[in-house]
Protein backbone atom coordinates (compact mmCIF):
# COMPACT_ATOMS: atom_id res chain seq x y z
CA UNK A 1 0.00 0.00 0.00
CA UNK A 2 1.33 3.42 -0.81
CA UNK A 3 0.06 6.19 1.40
CA UNK A 4 -1.06 9.60 0.16
CA UNK A 5 0.66 12.54 1.85
CA UNK A 6 -1.08 15.20 -0.24
CA UNK A 7 -3.59 17.52 1.37
CA UNK A 8 -6.11 20.17 0.32
CA UNK A 9 -6.04 23.25 2.53
CA UNK A 10 -9.12 25.25 1.57
CA UNK A 11 -8.43 24.88 -2.15
CA UNK A 12 -4.66 24.97 -1.81
CA UNK A 13 -3.18 21.66 -2.98
CA UNK A 14 -0.03 20.56 -1.17
CA UNK A 15 2.11 17.50 -1.93
CA UNK A 16 2.85 17.04 1.78
CA UNK A 17 1.40 18.62 4.92
CA UNK A 18 4.77 20.07 5.99
CA UNK A 19 5.13 23.83 5.54
CA UNK A 20 8.07 26.01 6.56
CA UNK A 21 6.75 28.57 9.08
CA UNK A 22 7.04 32.27 8.42
CA UNK A 23 10.05 34.02 9.89
CA UNK A 24 11.89 30.74 10.40
CA UNK A 25 12.93 30.07 6.82
CA UNK A 26 13.96 33.49 5.48
CA UNK A 27 12.54 33.97 2.01
CA UNK A 28 13.10 30.28 1.34
CA UNK A 29 15.96 30.84 -1.09
CA UNK A 30 18.46 30.94 1.79
CA UNK A 31 17.81 27.19 2.10
CA UNK A 32 17.83 26.42 -1.62
CA UNK A 33 21.35 24.91 -1.44
CA UNK A 34 20.58 22.35 1.24
CA UNK A 35 16.84 21.66 0.91
CA UNK A 36 14.94 20.84 -2.29
CA UNK A 37 12.18 23.39 -1.83
CA UNK A 38 9.86 21.53 -4.18
CA UNK A 39 9.70 18.65 -1.68
CA UNK A 40 8.16 20.86 1.00
CA UNK A 41 4.38 21.16 1.17
CA UNK A 42 4.89 24.90 1.00
CA UNK A 43 7.13 27.71 2.15
CA UNK A 44 5.64 30.55 4.22
CA UNK A 45 8.04 33.43 3.66
CA UNK A 46 9.16 35.99 6.23
CA UNK A 47 6.38 38.46 7.04
CA UNK A 48 6.19 41.34 4.55
CA UNK A 49 4.94 44.87 4.93
CA UNK A 50 4.35 47.22 2.01
CA UNK A 51 7.68 48.95 2.62
CA UNK A 52 11.11 47.80 3.76
CA UNK A 53 11.62 47.61 7.51
CA UNK A 54 14.79 47.45 9.59
CA UNK A 55 13.30 45.61 12.56
CA UNK A 56 14.44 45.84 16.17
CA UNK A 57 18.06 46.32 17.26
CA UNK A 58 19.87 43.26 18.66
CA UNK A 59 19.51 41.39 20.98
CA UNK A 60 16.65 39.78 19.05
CA UNK A 61 16.46 36.25 20.45
CA UNK A 62 17.06 34.50 23.73
CA UNK A 63 16.84 30.84 24.58
CA UNK A 64 14.40 29.75 27.31
CA UNK A 65 13.57 26.27 28.64
CA UNK A 66 12.77 24.11 25.59
CA UNK A 67 12.04 27.20 23.60
CA UNK A 68 13.11 30.65 22.56
CA UNK A 69 11.89 34.22 22.60
CA UNK A 70 12.17 36.38 19.51
CA UNK A 71 11.58 40.04 18.83
CA UNK A 72 12.87 40.47 15.30
CA UNK A 73 10.41 43.26 14.57
CA UNK A 74 9.62 42.04 11.06
CA UNK A 75 12.77 43.18 9.33
CA UNK A 76 11.99 42.76 5.66
CA UNK A 77 12.44 43.90 2.11
CA UNK A 78 8.84 44.98 1.44
CA UNK A 79 6.39 43.31 -0.89
CA UNK A 80 7.54 44.92 -4.15
CA UNK A 81 11.16 43.88 -3.77
CA UNK A 82 9.96 40.44 -2.72
CA UNK A 83 7.97 40.08 -5.93
CA UNK A 84 10.85 41.38 -8.05
CA UNK A 85 13.85 39.75 -6.33
CA UNK A 86 12.66 36.59 -4.58
CA UNK A 87 9.53 35.25 -6.24
CA UNK A 88 11.20 34.34 -9.56
CA UNK A 89 13.83 32.24 -7.74
CA UNK A 90 11.18 30.52 -5.66
CA UNK A 91 9.21 29.73 -8.83
CA UNK A 92 12.35 28.25 -10.40
CA UNK A 93 12.83 25.99 -7.37
CA UNK A 94 9.27 24.73 -7.71
CA UNK A 95 8.33 26.02 -4.26
CA UNK A 96 4.68 26.46 -3.26
CA UNK A 97 4.75 29.94 -1.78
CA UNK A 98 2.57 31.25 1.03
CA UNK A 99 3.19 34.95 1.34
CA UNK A 100 2.89 36.07 4.96
CA UNK A 101 1.79 39.70 5.03
CA UNK A 102 1.45 42.30 7.74
CA UNK A 103 0.07 45.83 7.80
CA UNK A 104 -0.21 48.76 10.18
CA UNK A 105 -3.68 49.48 8.78
CA UNK A 106 -6.45 47.47 7.13
CA UNK A 107 -5.76 49.39 3.94
CA UNK A 108 -2.08 48.37 3.98
CA UNK A 109 -3.05 44.68 4.15
CA UNK A 110 -5.37 45.17 1.18
CA UNK A 111 -2.74 47.06 -0.80
CA UNK A 112 -0.17 44.29 -0.32
CA UNK A 113 -2.76 41.68 -1.32
CA UNK A 114 -3.54 43.64 -4.50
CA UNK A 115 0.14 43.67 -5.44
CA UNK A 116 0.38 39.92 -4.81
CA UNK A 117 -2.77 39.24 -6.86
CA UNK A 118 -0.88 40.44 -9.94
CA UNK A 119 2.30 38.48 -9.15
CA UNK A 120 3.12 35.12 -10.68
CA UNK A 121 3.93 32.30 -8.30
CA UNK A 122 1.94 33.10 -5.16
CA UNK A 123 -0.04 30.07 -3.96
CA UNK A 124 -1.80 31.70 -1.02
CA UNK A 125 -1.75 34.63 1.35
CA UNK A 126 -1.14 34.10 5.04
CA UNK A 127 -2.45 37.10 6.93
CA UNK A 128 -0.23 37.85 9.87
CA UNK A 129 -2.67 39.39 12.33
CA UNK A 130 -0.74 37.87 15.20
CA UNK A 131 2.83 39.20 15.38
CA UNK A 132 3.29 40.00 19.09
CA UNK A 133 6.29 42.30 18.91
CA UNK A 134 5.50 45.25 16.70
CA UNK A 135 3.83 48.39 17.97
CA UNK A 136 1.32 48.88 15.14
CA UNK A 137 -0.38 46.07 13.25
CA UNK A 138 -0.11 42.34 13.69
CA UNK A 139 -1.58 41.21 16.99
CA UNK A 140 -3.35 44.56 17.37
CA UNK A 141 -5.82 43.24 14.76
CA UNK A 142 -5.72 39.59 15.68
CA UNK A 143 -6.58 40.13 19.34
CA UNK A 144 -9.90 41.79 18.57
CA UNK A 145 -12.79 40.02 16.83
CA UNK A 146 -13.71 43.26 15.06
CA UNK A 147 -10.11 43.79 13.87
CA UNK A 148 -9.88 40.20 12.67
CA UNK A 149 -13.13 40.55 10.74
CA UNK A 150 -12.12 43.89 9.21
CA UNK A 151 -8.70 42.78 7.97
CA UNK A 152 -9.93 39.45 6.60
CA UNK A 153 -12.89 40.93 4.77
CA UNK A 154 -10.83 43.83 3.36
CA UNK A 155 -8.29 41.42 1.90
CA UNK A 156 -11.02 39.00 0.77
CA UNK A 157 -12.47 41.76 -1.43
CA UNK A 158 -9.23 42.22 -3.39
CA UNK A 159 -7.95 38.68 -3.90
CA UNK A 160 -9.16 35.30 -5.10
CA UNK A 161 -6.05 33.59 -3.73
CA UNK A 162 -6.56 31.20 -0.81
CA UNK A 163 -6.64 33.41 2.26
CA UNK A 164 -5.22 32.08 5.53
CA UNK A 165 -5.33 34.35 8.58
CA UNK A 166 -2.71 33.39 11.14
CA UNK A 167 -4.15 33.51 14.63
CA UNK A 168 -2.55 34.64 17.84
CA UNK A 169 -2.68 32.45 20.95
CA UNK A 170 -2.66 35.58 23.11
CA UNK A 171 -6.45 35.59 23.50
CA UNK A 172 -8.82 33.84 25.87
CA UNK A 173 -10.93 32.04 23.29
CA UNK A 174 -8.99 31.36 20.11
CA UNK A 175 -11.88 29.40 18.55
CA UNK A 176 -14.05 32.52 18.37
CA UNK A 177 -11.31 34.11 16.25
CA UNK A 178 -11.28 31.13 13.90
CA UNK A 179 -15.04 31.50 13.50
CA UNK A 180 -14.73 35.26 12.92
CA UNK A 181 -12.04 34.67 10.29
CA UNK A 182 -14.17 32.04 8.53
CA UNK A 183 -17.24 34.27 8.54
CA UNK A 184 -15.21 37.10 7.01
CA UNK A 185 -14.19 34.88 4.10
CA UNK A 186 -11.04 33.00 5.17
CA UNK A 187 -10.34 29.73 3.33
CA UNK A 188 -8.36 28.32 6.25
CA UNK A 189 -6.63 29.50 9.42
CA UNK A 190 -3.13 28.88 10.69
CA UNK A 191 -2.26 28.79 14.37
CA UNK A 192 -0.46 29.46 16.58
CA UNK A 193 1.82 32.44 16.29
CA UNK A 194 4.12 33.00 19.28
CA UNK A 195 3.11 33.61 22.90
CA UNK A 196 3.93 37.05 24.27
CA UNK A 197 6.67 36.50 26.84
CA UNK A 198 9.67 38.01 28.59
CA UNK A 199 13.03 37.13 30.10
CA UNK A 200 15.18 39.21 32.45
CA UNK A 201 18.92 39.22 33.08
CA UNK A 202 18.95 39.25 36.87
CA UNK A 203 22.55 40.47 37.07
CA UNK A 204 21.86 43.67 35.15
CA UNK A 205 18.10 43.70 35.89
CA UNK A 206 17.53 44.44 32.25
CA UNK A 207 15.27 42.63 29.78
CA UNK A 208 17.19 40.11 27.71
CA UNK A 209 15.56 41.37 24.51
CA UNK A 210 16.04 44.91 23.22
CA UNK A 211 12.28 45.05 22.63
CA UNK A 212 11.69 44.05 26.29
CA UNK A 213 9.01 41.48 25.29
CA UNK A 214 9.04 38.87 22.55
CA UNK A 215 7.28 35.79 21.25
CA UNK A 216 7.83 32.32 22.73
CA UNK A 217 8.15 29.41 20.30
CA UNK A 218 9.49 25.87 20.31
CA UNK A 219 8.59 22.67 22.21
CA UNK A 220 7.64 24.65 25.33
CA UNK A 221 4.41 25.84 23.65
CA UNK A 222 3.40 22.62 21.92
CA UNK A 223 0.75 21.34 24.36
CA UNK A 224 -0.99 24.71 24.42
CA UNK A 225 -0.92 24.90 20.64
CA UNK A 226 -2.38 21.41 20.33
CA UNK A 227 -5.20 22.37 22.70
CA UNK A 228 -5.93 25.46 20.61
CA UNK A 229 -6.06 23.50 17.35
CA UNK A 230 -8.45 21.10 19.05
CA UNK A 231 -10.70 23.98 20.16
CA UNK A 232 -10.79 25.51 16.68
CA UNK A 233 -11.61 22.15 15.14
CA UNK A 234 -14.51 21.71 17.54
CA UNK A 235 -15.86 25.20 16.91
CA UNK A 236 -15.46 25.17 13.12
CA UNK A 237 -15.10 21.65 11.77
CA UNK A 238 -15.61 22.92 8.20
CA UNK A 239 -12.64 25.30 8.39
CA UNK A 240 -9.26 23.83 7.39
CA UNK A 241 -6.57 24.39 10.05
CA UNK A 242 -2.83 24.63 9.64
CA UNK A 243 -1.37 23.79 13.03
CA UNK A 244 2.00 24.74 14.50
CA UNK A 245 3.86 25.37 17.71
CA UNK A 246 6.94 23.43 18.76
CA UNK A 247 6.77 20.66 16.17
CA UNK A 248 10.19 18.97 16.17
CA UNK A 249 9.40 15.46 14.89
CA UNK A 250 6.85 13.56 12.83
CA UNK A 251 5.22 12.39 16.08
CA UNK A 252 4.61 15.99 17.07
CA UNK A 253 3.14 16.74 13.65
CA UNK A 254 0.86 13.71 13.86
CA UNK A 255 -0.44 14.95 17.20
CA UNK A 256 -1.55 18.20 15.55
CA UNK A 257 -3.13 16.33 12.62
CA UNK A 258 -5.12 14.09 14.96
CA UNK A 259 -6.24 17.21 16.85
CA UNK A 260 -7.64 18.58 13.61
CA UNK A 261 -4.89 20.20 11.55
CA UNK A 262 -4.90 19.32 7.86
CA UNK A 263 -1.34 20.65 7.49
CA UNK A 264 1.38 21.80 9.87
CA UNK A 265 4.12 24.39 9.93
CA UNK A 266 7.66 23.92 11.17
CA UNK A 267 9.36 26.97 12.64
CA UNK A 268 11.92 26.76 15.41
CA UNK A 269 12.76 23.10 14.62
CA UNK A 270 14.22 24.28 11.37
CA UNK A 271 16.91 26.20 13.31
CA UNK A 272 17.87 23.07 15.20
CA UNK A 273 17.83 20.79 12.16
CA UNK A 274 17.48 22.29 8.69
CA UNK A 275 17.42 18.76 7.29
CA UNK A 276 14.28 17.88 9.26
CA UNK A 277 12.01 17.72 6.18
CA UNK A 278 12.84 14.27 4.88
CA UNK A 279 12.64 12.85 8.42
CA UNK A 280 9.15 14.31 8.82
CA UNK A 281 7.97 12.75 5.57
CA UNK A 282 9.47 9.38 6.42
CA UNK A 283 8.05 9.38 9.94
CA UNK A 284 4.56 10.27 8.79
CA UNK A 285 4.62 7.70 5.98
CA UNK A 286 5.73 5.05 8.42
CA UNK A 287 2.99 5.98 10.89
CA UNK A 288 0.26 5.82 8.22
CA UNK A 289 1.49 2.38 7.19
CA UNK A 290 1.59 1.12 10.76
CA UNK A 291 -1.93 2.33 11.44
CA UNK A 292 -3.37 1.29 8.09
CA UNK A 293 -4.45 4.81 7.29
CA UNK A 294 -4.41 5.40 3.52
CA UNK A 295 -3.85 9.15 3.55
CA UNK A 296 -3.09 12.16 5.69
CA UNK A 297 -6.58 13.51 5.07
CA UNK A 298 -8.02 10.34 6.58
CA UNK A 299 -6.08 11.04 9.77
CA UNK A 300 -7.18 14.65 10.22
CA UNK A 301 -9.30 15.22 13.30
CA UNK A 302 -9.47 11.54 14.24
CA UNK A 303 -9.11 12.28 17.94
CA UNK A 304 -10.89 9.60 19.94
CA UNK A 305 -12.80 11.41 22.68
CA UNK A 306 -14.67 8.42 24.02
CA UNK A 307 -12.27 8.39 26.98
CA UNK A 308 -12.20 11.37 29.26
CA UNK A 309 -13.98 14.66 29.02
CA UNK A 310 -13.28 17.27 26.38
CA UNK A 311 -14.05 20.90 26.63
Amino acid sequence: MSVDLSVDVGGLQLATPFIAASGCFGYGLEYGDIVDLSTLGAVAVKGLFLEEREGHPPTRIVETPSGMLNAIGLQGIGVRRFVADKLPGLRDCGAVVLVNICGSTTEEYAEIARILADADGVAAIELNISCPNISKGGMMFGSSLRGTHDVVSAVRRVTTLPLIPKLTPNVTDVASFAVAARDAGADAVSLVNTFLAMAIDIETRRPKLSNVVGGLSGPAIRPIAVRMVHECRQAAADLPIIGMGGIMTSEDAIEFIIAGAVAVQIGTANFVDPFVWSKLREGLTDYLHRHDVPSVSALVGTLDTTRGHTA
Partner: protein
Amino acid sequence: MPVDVDAVVLSNTQLSHDYNTVILAAPRLGDQALPGQFVMVKTTYGDDPLLRRPFSVFEILRDDAGRSTGVSLLNKRIGVTTRALYALRPGDHVRCLGPLGRPFSVAEPPEQAWMVAGGVGLAAFATLAANLRARRVDTTLFYGGRRADDLFHLDTFESLDVHLRLATDDGSRGDHGNVTVPLRRAFVSTDRTTPVRLYACGPTPMMRAVTELAASEGRATEVSLEQVMGCGLGGCYSCVVPVRGPDGTHFVRSCLDGPIFDGGSVVWEQLGE
Protein backbone atom coordinates in the same frame (compact mmCIF):
# COMPACT_ATOMS: atom_id res chain seq x y z
CA MET B 1 27.77 23.33 0.78
CA PRO B 2 27.11 23.02 4.52
CA VAL B 3 26.81 19.54 5.98
CA ASP B 4 25.38 18.38 9.30
CA VAL B 5 27.77 15.87 10.80
CA ASP B 6 27.37 13.82 13.93
CA ALA B 7 31.04 14.06 14.87
CA VAL B 8 32.81 11.77 17.33
CA VAL B 9 34.99 13.47 19.93
CA LEU B 10 38.57 12.21 19.49
CA SER B 11 40.00 14.18 22.38
CA ASN B 12 39.17 16.94 24.80
CA THR B 13 42.07 18.85 26.34
CA GLN B 14 41.12 21.01 29.31
CA LEU B 15 43.56 23.89 29.11
CA SER B 16 42.44 25.61 32.32
CA HIS B 17 39.39 25.63 34.56
CA ASP B 18 37.38 27.28 31.78
CA TYR B 19 39.17 26.76 28.44
CA ASN B 20 39.37 23.53 26.43
CA THR B 21 40.10 22.28 22.94
CA VAL B 22 37.92 19.57 21.45
CA ILE B 23 39.06 17.55 18.47
CA LEU B 24 36.23 16.19 16.35
CA ALA B 25 36.37 13.51 13.68
CA ALA B 26 34.70 15.45 10.89
CA PRO B 27 36.62 15.12 7.63
CA ARG B 28 33.84 16.62 5.53
CA LEU B 29 33.86 19.77 7.64
CA GLY B 30 37.63 20.06 7.55
CA ASP B 31 37.61 19.59 3.77
CA GLN B 32 35.47 22.62 3.22
CA ALA B 33 36.19 25.05 6.05
CA LEU B 34 37.83 28.35 5.14
CA PRO B 35 39.55 30.70 7.61
CA GLY B 36 36.98 32.63 9.67
CA GLN B 37 34.08 30.29 8.98
CA PHE B 38 31.98 28.76 11.77
CA VAL B 39 29.91 25.73 12.64
CA MET B 40 26.58 25.54 14.49
CA VAL B 41 27.05 23.11 17.37
CA LYS B 42 24.57 21.06 19.39
CA THR B 43 25.78 18.76 22.13
CA THR B 44 22.50 16.99 22.89
CA TYR B 45 19.60 15.49 21.01
CA GLY B 46 17.03 16.80 23.47
CA ASP B 47 15.00 20.00 23.50
CA ASP B 48 16.86 21.69 26.35
CA PRO B 49 19.12 23.35 25.42
CA LEU B 50 17.30 23.70 22.17
CA LEU B 51 19.29 25.87 19.80
CA ARG B 52 22.71 25.35 18.32
CA ARG B 53 25.54 27.74 19.12
CA PRO B 54 28.08 29.17 16.68
CA PHE B 55 31.77 28.25 17.09
CA SER B 56 34.76 29.19 14.97
CA VAL B 57 36.57 26.31 13.34
CA PHE B 58 39.86 26.50 15.24
CA GLU B 59 42.20 24.07 13.47
CA ILE B 60 41.71 21.79 10.51
CA LEU B 61 43.43 18.50 11.33
CA ARG B 62 45.13 16.50 8.63
CA ASP B 63 46.72 13.08 8.28
CA ASP B 64 50.24 12.50 6.94
CA ALA B 65 48.96 12.60 3.39
CA GLY B 66 47.42 16.02 4.02
CA ARG B 67 43.84 14.76 3.94
CA SER B 68 41.44 16.41 6.38
CA THR B 69 40.51 14.21 9.32
CA GLY B 70 38.55 16.70 11.34
CA VAL B 71 38.42 20.03 13.08
CA SER B 72 39.07 21.37 16.54
CA LEU B 73 37.05 23.88 18.52
CA LEU B 74 38.52 26.23 21.12
CA ASN B 75 35.92 26.65 23.84
CA LYS B 76 35.45 28.79 26.92
CA ARG B 77 32.98 27.63 29.54
CA ILE B 78 30.35 30.34 29.96
CA GLY B 79 26.84 29.11 29.18
CA VAL B 80 25.01 25.84 28.90
CA THR B 81 26.44 24.59 25.58
CA THR B 82 29.97 25.73 26.40
CA ARG B 83 29.72 23.87 29.73
CA ALA B 84 28.69 20.73 27.86
CA LEU B 85 31.57 21.15 25.42
CA TYR B 86 33.99 21.56 28.30
CA ALA B 87 32.86 18.28 29.83
CA LEU B 88 33.00 16.15 26.65
CA ARG B 89 34.79 12.82 26.70
CA PRO B 90 36.36 10.91 23.83
CA GLY B 91 33.66 8.92 22.06
CA ASP B 92 30.91 11.46 22.77
CA HIS B 93 29.05 12.92 19.81
CA VAL B 94 28.62 16.54 18.80
CA ARG B 95 26.40 17.70 15.97
CA CYS B 96 28.08 20.29 13.76
CA LEU B 97 26.39 22.12 10.91
CA GLY B 98 28.77 23.94 8.62
CA PRO B 99 31.02 25.35 7.46
CA LEU B 100 29.04 28.59 7.39
CA GLY B 101 29.60 32.29 6.81
CA ARG B 102 31.83 34.55 4.81
CA PRO B 103 35.53 33.82 5.39
CA PHE B 104 38.45 36.19 6.04
CA SER B 105 40.22 37.49 2.97
CA VAL B 106 43.68 35.93 3.13
CA ALA B 107 46.62 38.32 2.70
CA GLU B 108 49.23 37.78 -0.03
CA PRO B 109 52.92 38.77 0.10
CA PRO B 110 54.33 41.37 0.28
CA GLU B 111 51.43 42.24 2.55
CA GLN B 112 51.95 41.35 6.22
CA ALA B 113 49.14 39.89 8.35
CA TRP B 114 48.44 41.07 11.87
CA MET B 115 45.95 38.97 13.79
CA VAL B 116 44.61 40.54 16.98
CA ALA B 117 42.96 38.16 19.45
CA GLY B 118 41.36 38.69 22.84
CA GLY B 119 40.58 35.66 24.99
CA VAL B 120 38.58 32.99 23.19
CA GLY B 121 38.76 35.18 20.06
CA LEU B 122 41.95 33.23 19.36
CA ALA B 123 39.61 30.57 17.95
CA ALA B 124 39.27 32.46 14.66
CA PHE B 125 42.98 32.42 13.87
CA ALA B 126 44.62 28.99 13.71
CA THR B 127 43.16 28.14 10.31
CA LEU B 128 43.93 31.62 9.05
CA ALA B 129 47.54 31.30 10.26
CA ALA B 130 47.89 27.97 8.43
CA ASN B 131 46.60 29.54 5.22
CA LEU B 132 48.88 32.56 5.60
CA ARG B 133 51.86 30.32 6.13
CA ALA B 134 51.07 28.36 2.99
CA ARG B 135 51.25 31.67 1.14
CA ARG B 136 54.44 32.65 2.95
CA VAL B 137 52.87 35.76 4.44
CA ASP B 138 54.78 37.40 7.29
CA THR B 139 52.29 36.98 10.16
CA THR B 140 52.06 38.36 13.70
CA LEU B 141 49.60 37.40 16.42
CA PHE B 142 48.74 40.04 19.00
CA TYR B 143 47.08 38.10 21.79
CA GLY B 144 45.68 39.33 25.08
CA GLY B 145 44.37 37.45 28.10
CA ARG B 146 43.73 37.95 31.79
CA ARG B 147 46.91 36.25 33.06
CA ALA B 148 49.90 34.31 31.75
CA ASP B 149 48.11 31.02 32.32
CA ASP B 150 45.21 32.34 30.27
CA LEU B 151 47.14 32.37 26.98
CA PHE B 152 46.81 29.12 25.06
CA HIS B 153 48.15 27.31 22.01
CA LEU B 154 51.20 29.57 21.70
CA ASP B 155 53.14 26.59 20.36
CA THR B 156 50.51 26.01 17.66
CA PHE B 157 51.07 29.49 16.33
CA GLU B 158 54.84 29.38 16.77
CA SER B 159 54.96 26.20 14.72
CA LEU B 160 53.15 28.12 11.98
CA ASP B 161 55.97 30.71 12.00
CA VAL B 162 53.74 33.35 13.58
CA HIS B 163 55.45 36.12 15.57
CA LEU B 164 53.83 36.52 18.98
CA ARG B 165 53.05 39.81 20.75
CA LEU B 166 51.39 39.09 24.06
CA ALA B 167 49.59 41.17 26.68
CA THR B 168 47.95 40.31 29.99
CA ASP B 169 45.66 42.30 32.25
CA ASP B 170 47.92 41.66 35.25
CA GLY B 171 51.22 41.96 33.40
CA SER B 172 52.24 38.38 34.20
CA ARG B 173 53.19 37.77 30.56
CA GLY B 174 53.96 40.20 27.75
CA ASP B 175 52.72 43.75 28.02
CA HIS B 176 50.74 44.91 31.02
CA GLY B 177 47.30 45.91 29.76
CA ASN B 178 45.18 44.91 26.86
CA VAL B 179 46.22 43.79 23.44
CA THR B 180 46.12 47.28 21.98
CA VAL B 181 49.33 48.06 23.92
CA PRO B 182 51.64 45.93 21.74
CA LEU B 183 49.51 46.75 18.70
CA ARG B 184 50.02 50.46 19.22
CA ARG B 185 53.77 49.91 19.48
CA ALA B 186 53.75 47.92 16.25
CA PHE B 187 52.03 50.76 14.46
CA VAL B 188 54.66 53.19 15.73
CA SER B 189 57.50 51.02 14.44
CA THR B 190 55.89 50.24 11.08
CA ASP B 191 56.06 52.62 8.17
CA ARG B 192 52.62 53.71 7.00
CA THR B 193 53.44 52.61 3.46
CA THR B 194 54.13 49.02 4.56
CA PRO B 195 51.14 46.94 3.44
CA VAL B 196 49.48 45.24 6.42
CA ARG B 197 46.17 43.37 6.58
CA LEU B 198 44.59 43.43 10.04
CA TYR B 199 42.23 40.90 11.54
CA ALA B 200 40.55 41.06 14.95
CA CYS B 201 38.47 38.67 17.03
CA GLY B 202 37.56 39.00 20.69
CA PRO B 203 35.31 41.00 22.99
CA THR B 204 33.32 43.70 21.20
CA PRO B 205 35.03 46.66 22.95
CA MET B 206 38.42 45.24 21.97
CA MET B 207 37.44 44.81 18.31
CA ARG B 208 36.08 48.31 18.25
CA ALA B 209 39.27 49.70 19.81
CA VAL B 210 41.43 47.81 17.29
CA THR B 211 39.31 49.03 14.38
CA GLU B 212 39.54 52.64 15.57
CA LEU B 213 43.25 52.44 16.29
CA ALA B 214 43.90 50.94 12.84
CA ALA B 215 41.66 53.54 11.19
CA SER B 216 43.70 56.32 12.81
CA GLU B 217 46.68 54.78 11.01
CA GLY B 218 44.72 54.72 7.77
CA ARG B 219 44.25 50.96 7.86
CA ALA B 220 41.20 48.70 7.63
CA THR B 221 40.44 45.78 9.98
CA GLU B 222 38.49 42.62 9.28
CA VAL B 223 36.59 41.76 12.45
CA SER B 224 34.94 38.45 13.35
CA LEU B 225 31.70 39.28 15.19
CA GLU B 226 29.99 36.95 17.65
CA GLN B 227 26.31 37.80 17.51
CA VAL B 228 23.63 35.74 19.20
CA MET B 229 22.59 33.42 16.42
CA GLY B 230 19.48 31.30 15.86
CA CYS B 231 20.03 29.22 12.77
CA GLY B 232 23.30 30.15 11.02
CA LEU B 233 21.64 29.90 7.63
CA GLY B 234 19.86 33.22 7.15
CA GLY B 235 16.46 31.94 8.23
CA CYS B 236 15.71 33.84 11.41
CA TYR B 237 17.20 37.35 11.18
CA SER B 238 18.37 37.30 14.77
CA CYS B 239 22.15 37.73 14.35
CA VAL B 240 22.00 41.10 12.63
CA VAL B 241 24.78 43.67 12.69
CA PRO B 242 24.21 47.39 12.00
CA VAL B 243 26.34 48.19 8.96
CA ARG B 244 26.87 51.59 7.38
CA GLY B 245 26.35 51.56 3.63
CA PRO B 246 26.00 54.12 0.84
CA ASP B 247 22.27 54.47 1.58
CA GLY B 248 22.41 54.58 5.37
CA THR B 249 22.69 52.02 8.16
CA HIS B 250 21.09 48.62 7.71
CA PHE B 251 20.86 45.47 9.78
CA VAL B 252 22.58 42.66 7.92
CA ARG B 253 22.70 39.02 8.91
CA SER B 254 25.98 38.01 10.49
CA CYS B 255 25.55 34.38 9.41
CA LEU B 256 25.39 35.22 5.70
CA ASP B 257 27.14 38.58 5.30
CA GLY B 258 29.51 37.88 8.22
CA PRO B 259 30.73 36.82 10.67
CA ILE B 260 33.67 38.64 9.05
CA PHE B 261 32.95 42.35 8.55
CA ASP B 262 34.94 45.40 7.63
CA GLY B 263 35.26 46.90 11.12
CA GLY B 264 35.00 50.38 9.65
CA SER B 265 31.48 49.72 8.37
CA VAL B 266 30.13 48.39 11.70
CA VAL B 267 28.05 50.86 13.73
CA TRP B 268 29.54 49.73 17.04
CA GLU B 269 27.27 51.73 19.33
CA GLN B 270 24.21 49.93 17.89
CA LEU B 271 25.67 46.46 18.02
CA GLY B 272 23.96 45.38 21.25
CA GLU B 273 25.53 43.25 23.94
